[in-house]
């Protein structure tokens, strides 16, 4: 079993490589804390400025309700819309709420919004949050809001703060695995090429497939450890529930890990230096993070981009993990993304084995 010899060697090397070993635990931990908390903080305590031109009991109630959600932290009250714009431009507030003088009349009309939310357009994430604010639950008080007035439609079952964390954490497993798995294997072959080990290895009876398999196996275990770490931290720190079965979740993770590792190996066979391998990994990582539906809703993307995203394993994994963890979906319901991911893995491993020739030219 030559691939076990390769796997054993990889583990021995990994154990001595303290930096890499530290990254196996460090990257998930750091990302988890950064993403988990940062996204929470974004939703809570956004500094806001209020321009209340109506100054009626209803408008004051609205301001009080906005403050009470905790999403906005009202730091300024201004007197004109010019002043509001200036505050945003200066970066002192990220959101401005403009309640017009005719607020009382507008809030009873269904064809016009009652008030305006002004967002710093240079920050795309803020715009998303503003959209969240538009659907924010404001307790309906008799006589204060018209039942079907736009902008402040009441949907009490919906909790924007919790929604973000719960959405982000399971998908974060995918992002973390993409980063660590792909980088580890992307440099795996290139490093041996740079150090001259490969010239020796290819004169031995080891086959391309055995070599690739031996390099993948240790990292599959590392990937499963990372999955466990993120799930555990998610449950402890962010109360992220797992509605579906753990077995299904780990199966999805296993296939995704294999897909990502294979993609890393493919990069490794294409790159000539470790630097090139890093750059190529980033070329795959960035679209993965942006287009997979991890941050932005998949449905909102142009059709061409959706097709492109289909070629990224993370897209399918985000689909899978949200299905298992949040919607409690079982294997039968997740058949399509599972099969897509399996096909992707098989194609990439075949490409790697064909691509890696035991020759120097």
């Amino acid at each position, binding site marked *: 079993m030559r691939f076990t010899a390769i796997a054993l060697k990889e583990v021995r*090397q990994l154990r001595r490589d303290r930096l890499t070993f530290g990254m196996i635990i460090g990257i998930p931990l750091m990302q988890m804390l950064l993403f988990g908390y940062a996204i929470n903080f974004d939703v809570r305590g956004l500094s806001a400025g209020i321009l209340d031109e109506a100054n009626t009991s209803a408008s004051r109630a609205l301001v009080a309700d906005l403050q009470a959600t905790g999403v906005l932290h009202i730091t300024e009250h201004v007197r004109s819309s010019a002043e509001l714009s200036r505050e945003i431009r200066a970066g002192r507030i990220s959101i401005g709420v403009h309640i017009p003088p005719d607020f009382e009349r507008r809030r009873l009309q269904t064809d016009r919004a009652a008030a305006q939310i002004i967002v710093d357009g240079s920050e795309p994430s803020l715009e998303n949050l503003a959209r969240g604010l538009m659907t924010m639950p404001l307790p309906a008080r008799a006589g204060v809001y018209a039942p079907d007035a736009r902008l402040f439609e009441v949907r009490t079952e919906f909790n924007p703060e919790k929604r973000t964390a719960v959405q982000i954490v399971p998908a974060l497993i995918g992002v973390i695995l993409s980063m660590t798995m792909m980088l580890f294997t992307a440099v795996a072959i290139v490093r041996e090429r740079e150090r*001259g080990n490969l010239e020796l290895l290819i004169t031995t009876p080891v086959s391309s497939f055995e070599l690739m398999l031996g390099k993948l196996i240790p990292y599959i275990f590392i990937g499963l450890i990372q999955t466990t770490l993120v799930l555990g931290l998610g449950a402890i720190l962010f109360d992220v529930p797992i509605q579906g079965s753990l077995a299904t979740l780990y199966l999805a993770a296993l296939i995704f890990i294999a897909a990502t590792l294979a993609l890393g190996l493919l990069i490794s066979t294409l790159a000539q230096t470790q630097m090139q391998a890093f750059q190529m990994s980033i070329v795959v990582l960035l679209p993965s993070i942006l287009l997979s539906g991890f941050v932005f809703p998949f449905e909102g993307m142009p059709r061409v981009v959706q097709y492109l995203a289909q070629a990224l394993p993370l897209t399918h994994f985000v689909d899978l993990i949200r299905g298992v963890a949040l919607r409690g979906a079982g294997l039968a319901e997740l058949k399509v993304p599972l099969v897509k991911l399996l096909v992707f893995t098989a194609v990439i491993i075949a490409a790697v084995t064909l691509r890696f020739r035991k*020759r120097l030219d």
Partner: protein
Amino acid sequence: MSADTGDPVISARGLTKVFGKNRAVDHVDLDIPAAHIYGFLGPNGSGKSTTLRMLCGLLRPTSGEVTVLGHSVPRDAERLRMKIGYMTQRFSLWEDLTVVENLDFMSRIFGLDAERRRTRIDALLRQYRLTEMANQRAGTLSGGQKQRLALAAAILHEPELLLLDEPTSAVDPQNRRDFWESLFDLAAAGTTILVSTHYMDEAERCHGVAILDRGRLVAEGSPRSLMDSIGATVVEIEAPEPRAARHALDDQAVVKSVAQLGTRLHALLDPSVPDAVARVQELLRAKNIDARVEIVRASLEDVFVAATGFNVDRTAAA
């Protein structure tokens, strides 16, 4: 010396490798008998490494036929893997693994069972004086120790053919001597060894030598036969001022090349010159240089210069 019995272990016909516009190896023919130590001698860039790499299937020849141990290369290169050992120019074992771990890994790759792994590793550690640093990382070894480890790793599976690409370029003279003793032991036990080098003294130890120059095989044979059949008359000159003597002989049509060895000069003359000694003395006297001149037996270095140097001189002059 071992007898030339049976088919050659390696035979190549018209072996050629072209990288872009550069003919790295140009129509090389080789027949290397079993249990021989066969040396490729040539300057850097002469095509030694490229030839070795083509012989073990690492590079595909642009044209030409190669048969190694009865297998056509590169077509059946994979079937050769168990029968050959290869030592790269650069230390290519894993520096972050220990000596034993490296040997253990390579023996597993070559499919040795647990029992044979243990006995071979033990034997080689002792034979190559590596027992004391068995648990030391390979990266911390000295040049000589690394080279012994690399040789041990290359022969774990007892290959019939050993390919060594400039194996002694990073070791001191004592270690080089020891290393060559090891090679003779292996050859005596029946291993055919192909070694590339740019050291004359190493080439002289080989049973057979091929001199490569810019991809072409310019001379081939045993070191002795090469020295005997050099296509030049070798004249040794001992002069009080060797630099002046050298300049006196430069640019003379009959003198093909001059090389200085300490206080002496070796001049290679066209073999058609009837009285070489008299001719050289005449040339020196014209510059008022009094020197002792005599015809000597060619060294391998003279052979090398005769085989490669003339071309270089001509190119430089043109």
